[in-house]
């Protein structure tokens, strides 16, 4: 098989427009979950409750859209639920000194069981819910961009939450690196004592960071239930909260990095679905890839970091000898 045939196969099956669009779609909830992990991580909080908050967001979005026939109401309801859950989470763990990991585990289990319960109690169905009254977001064609040959197909025709996500990545970057509040947040995450002595209200910043993470998680839920496929399924978050943590760790806490690594995981997801559908490769290995890659990346980056630190020390020692 010569080079041209291989590139032809690659272009046709791997790097085609449909796959790219699928990648961007599948990456969207991961990006949001990643931002949820990022904002708390940068404030020095290990928030493992993202999974549960996504689930709550997905459920309330469906409820809002179903009862008011409007995805915008769903979105608002989800944001409200994100604020409430994360507010309680922050209140209990930051103010009432509950261990944050403990609270995270409790919230995740609580979310799973209460959404299952609520689906039965409110929608009177078990497992999954879908209805013609449930209105999701419609795809948006962007006027000028949609006419550009390839770029148009790539960038246009997604639903509102997708564009919102892209915007949020940019806004998070601006917030973190270009505003005083972002600086404060990073200071709190890196050295809370030092931040405290500078007069930064550490508790308040952390509280707000947790609230923000709740909103990101809720938006991820909105995308899952109204943004692409419309309907609610029990436990539809399917570990995305944890993949978000993986993405954030993988990206080292940088917003753009979170976006890019989510694209990578979205791509794996897309290709994996194809491979599974054509029975080439067991899906289980594809499903574990994000976690596996993160573990490997963590190993690699930490080893490199310690090597560089050691090299630096050696260099300093070397320079000091002649003097």
């Amino acid at each position, binding site marked *: 098989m010569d080079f041209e045939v291989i590139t032809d196969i690659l272009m046709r099956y791997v790097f085609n427009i449909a796959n790219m669009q699928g990648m961007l779609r599948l990456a969207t909830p991961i990006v949001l979950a990643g931002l949820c992990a990022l904002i708390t991580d940068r404030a020095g909080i290990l928030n493992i409750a993202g999974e549960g908050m996504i689930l709550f967001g997905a459920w309330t979005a469906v409820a809002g859209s179903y009862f008011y026939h409007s995805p915008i109401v769903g979105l608002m309801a989800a944001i409200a639920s994100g604020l409430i859950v994360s507010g309680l989470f922050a209140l209990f763990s930051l103010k009432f000194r509950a261990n944050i990991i403990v609270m995270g585990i409790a919230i995740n289990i609580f979310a799973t069981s209460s959404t299952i319960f609520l689906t*039965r109690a409110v929608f009177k169905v078990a497992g999954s819910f879908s209805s013609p009254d449930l209105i999701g977001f419609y795809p948006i064609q962007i006027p000028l961009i949609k006419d550009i040959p390839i770029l148009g197909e790539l960038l246009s025709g997604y639903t509102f939450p997708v564009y919102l996500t892209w915007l949020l990545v940019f806004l998070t970057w601006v917030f973190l690196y270009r505003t005083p509040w972002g600086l404060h947040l990073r200071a709190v995450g890196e050295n809370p004592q030092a931040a405290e002595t500078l007069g930064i209200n550490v508790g308040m910043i952390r509280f707000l960071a947790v609230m923000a993470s709740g909103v990101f998680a809720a938006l991820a839920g909105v995308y899952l239930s109204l943004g692409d496929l419309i309907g609610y399924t029990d436990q539809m978050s399917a570990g995305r909260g944890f993949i978000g943590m993986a993405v954030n760790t993988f990206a080292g806490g940088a917003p753009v990095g979170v976006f890019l690594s989510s694209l990578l995981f979205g791509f794996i997801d897309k290709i994996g679905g194809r491979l599974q559908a054509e029975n080439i490769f067991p899906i289980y290995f594809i499903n574990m890839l994000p976690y596996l890659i993160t573990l490997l990346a963590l190993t690699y980056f930490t080893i490199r970091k310690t090597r560089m630190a050691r090299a630096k020390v050696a260099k300093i020692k070397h320079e000091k000898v002649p003097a």
Partner: protein
Amino acid sequence: MTATTFSARLKRNLPGTLNRTLTVLLSILLGVLVGSLIMIYYGFDPIQIYSSLLQGAFLSEKGRFVTIQRATPLIFTAIASALAFRTGVFNVGVEGQFFIGAITATYIGYAVKLPMIIHLPLTLFFGFLGGAAWAYIPTLMRQKLGVSEIITTIMTNYIATNLVSYLCNYPMKAKPTVAETPFVQPTATLPQFIDFNPQLGRGTQANVGIFIAIAVVIIMWYVFKRTKVGYEWRLVGLSSAFSEFSGINLTRTFIGGMLVSGGIAGLGGAVEILGVWRRYKDLFALGFGFKGNLAALLGGQTILGSGFAALFYGGMESGALDLSFTMGVPRQLIDIVVGMIIFFMAAEGIWDFTKKIKWARDEQVRRTTENLEV
């Protein structure tokens, strides 16, 4: 503790214990109350639900056996989590270790042919080993690279569940249609009560695994209370900086805590397979690890407390099972109530007002010394 008599000790510890009991009781009360409100809102009668819950869990003959069956794996995972939490190791990976223990035990169970007296202990041992080996990955990453075990144990959970699903869907699959492994040899199964006497626990799969679970509770309780290793673990859990000062090898306690915790979780998986299922079925028991985490939290992260909490949780599950059959109440209501109770218990801060009560005023100081006593 040579000179102090029992009564003196009691007098000194009583305020702290009373205070903690009070907060636990209040938390349970609050959880039950909030749960009742939810039930009333959705048109259920809370008193009827709670009473038939207790009825189904502990007061009926069959219910008691279902409780035992449900509680057995939970006791293992609860002890595994409690042990880790007390040692200052956040092992969120109990779920994954449980699965790996289960699949390892299944493999040894069906692939090896030995007399029962060797086969059964060997299989259980491999279950323990599987869990411990799986816990070794995050341990290694923490020790060699300094990566937080919380992140890595979460990641390895997902790797474990997918790996195990792959194994029972591909290489270990017995029949082409169903995603399950072959049955384990009869020499590797744990007898169910029904095997001894057809009347004993009819219609349930309660098995002698509960005795192994109780043994684990007692052994771990003894280790924690009466041995040097246990003392070191507790000390590190309370303050790692102080323990390092006093010459405790933090690396060793961390590795020890993590591996024993993972091993117990794996043993739980093995017992569940050998006692109840006798083969590995894909996704047979999602959530045992997380529920174990919850039970450990419910039990105040102490060994005995977690054991009882797991039993209680098993009882609630068994009662809820009954409930959803007879009254059409979703099983998840129970998880909601338990979740509430944990929220209230974990949030120490909301109970600060109890410290103003006279007998509990010096609780804060006492709690530390009390925990350190041998």
